[in-house]
């Protein structure tokens, strides 16, 4: 029972981590929380669903199209909205409010386009769970876990080992200096948004497989946002750790206490962590400069 819950929790945490790492990436570069990120995941799931349901494409192909679609939507957010706000030299919080506006647009737009009903992916697995001894583990949970782990490890390698990752870290450290040193910051922002969008799209498809696809499923972005704050804003590793902690806590609380108390305890945990460590688990505390 406990092991089963633990696997379940880590797999939920894996989905959160895919979205939360996008929050962290974008925060580390632009210093704002992209509240439309959960909706990007939702749109990715819808794109994949459209391709499996109407065009009868095999699931893998549709999933890849969904992930690509999410990447493009995320890129367009940056290109059409955020970049213009940056060029206005508006305070960064305006980016956050624009993101909230975008999230309302996406949520209600997909409500108008696809209707409020829950939609299902056609089943892709012959068996729903496997038993190891007395432990029953969902195949989908294992798949989710594997996909999330591979994606996040690739992301980590890209950030720490490649030249592109060095560019990201340089911009995160100081945008203006990085620009002076010849990094095309706007291009990097666009690429990072696309990468974050792809990860969110992956999360959306996995989430749609596990539960259903519906217009408000993007609200999961809130959990992922909490995970990224929990881990320290702007820290990708922190976001992943935070996501797993929150996923496991949620599953454990609903499993052993009450599902009604799940969110209460998650939020209480968040506030307590912030009181003990004001910049999250792995966040770097930055001195404010005048």
């Amino acid at each position, binding site marked *: 029972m406990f092991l089963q819950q633990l696997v379940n929790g880590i797999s939920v945490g894996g989905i959160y981590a895919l979205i939360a790492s996008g929050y962290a990436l974008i925060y580390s570069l632009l210093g704002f929380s992209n509240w439309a990120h959960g909706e990007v995941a939702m749109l990715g799931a819808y794109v994949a669903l459209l391709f499996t349901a109407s065009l009868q494409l095999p699931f893998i192909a549709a999933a890849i199209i969904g992930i690509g679609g999410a990447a493009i939507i995320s890129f367009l957010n940056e290109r059409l909205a955020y970049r213009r706000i940056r060029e*206005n030299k508006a305070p960064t919080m305006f980016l956050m409010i624009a993101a909230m*506006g975008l999230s309302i647009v996406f949520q209600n737009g997909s*409500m108008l386009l696809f209707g409020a009903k829950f939609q299902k992916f056609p089943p892709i697995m012959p068996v729903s769970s496997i038993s190891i001894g007395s432990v029953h583990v969902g195949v989908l949970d294992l798949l989710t876990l594997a996909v999330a782990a591979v994606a996040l490890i690739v992301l980590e390698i890209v950030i720490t080992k490649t030249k592109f990752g060095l560019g990201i870290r340089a911009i995160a450290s100081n945008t203006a200096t990085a620009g002076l040193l010849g990094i095309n910051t706007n291009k990097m922002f666009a690429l990072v948004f696309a990468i974050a969008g792809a990860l969110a799209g992956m999360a959306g498809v996995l989430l749609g497989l596990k539960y259903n696809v519906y217009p408000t499923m993007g609200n999961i972005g809130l959990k992922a946002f909490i995970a990224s704050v929990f881990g320290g804003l702007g820290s990708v590793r922190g976001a992943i750790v935070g996501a797993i902690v929150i996923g496991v806590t949620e599953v454990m609380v609903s499993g052993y206490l009450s599902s009604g108390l799940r969110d209460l305890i998650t*939020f209480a945990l968040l506030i307590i962590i*912030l009181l003990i460590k*004001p910049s999250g688990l792995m966040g770097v505390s930055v001195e404010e400069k005048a």
Partner: protein
Amino acid sequence: MFSDYTQGIMIIACINMIAVLGISVLTGFTRLFSFGNAGFMSIGAYTSALLTAKMGMPFIPAILVGILFAGIAAYLLGSLTLKLKGDYFLITTLGFGEMVRVLFNYIPITGGARGLSGIPKYTTLPIAVICLVLAVIIAWTLIHSKYGRNFTAIREQEIAAESVGIDITRSKKMAFVFSAMFAGWAGALYAHNLMFLSPMMFNLAKSAELTITVVIGGLGSLTGSIFGSLVVTLLPEIFRSLANYRMFLYGLAVVLIIILRPAGLFGYREFSIRKSIAFVKAAPGTITALLKGKSSKDKMEARK
């Protein structure tokens, strides 16, 4: 004088404006963000509703107790979290709002998710209007007092404000408690208008709506906030036939305003009758100036 339907909308508009005024002081003048004010609204609403419905307390004391409870909650939360910076503070208010909602959903005295009914209808249009006028006067007085100037100093440059001797934490706490009390006030009126409460009414979307309204109206303008909440409350009623598109258009409007008119509809300016008359009189001159190619963008650059 007005039909019941019109009166209902006017009452809702007054209530929204009171809650928005609180956020205006907090976000527009002190530049702190709260996504938990729906939580304070629900504290004011449930406290006063339980007092009048279950204990038979008269309306005005019940409102005052509701306001007080909302203020105490904000004081306690603020004492813990106001030292956190930027987004970290914001997320604790968000967490608080959601916690209050889940809690009211869970404990039996509030009726849980089924809601609390049987609240007497005390909020009439005259009461709502009187409350709004009072709220405007209080907010206006606060903003133009020494404390209000401290808020503005913090908004403009926190470190500079601190270095000239303004107690940052205390000022921030004052603005936070003030906004929570206004939210509690609005909540109490809301409860006795609708005669029914459910925790779902005070979700994150409600908190976000309050903040977005202030941004639309113009950060740093009380009249702008009032105008913004008038727009946000009345437009959906005028475009009832577009009910399905309401939220979609609302979101779109927010994004467009942020991109095209970043200072909000009113910017930092307050509406004044004298200036409006002067503007209308000077309008021909302004238009010729505009035609000569002095666009408003140049003016914005010049002001910087």
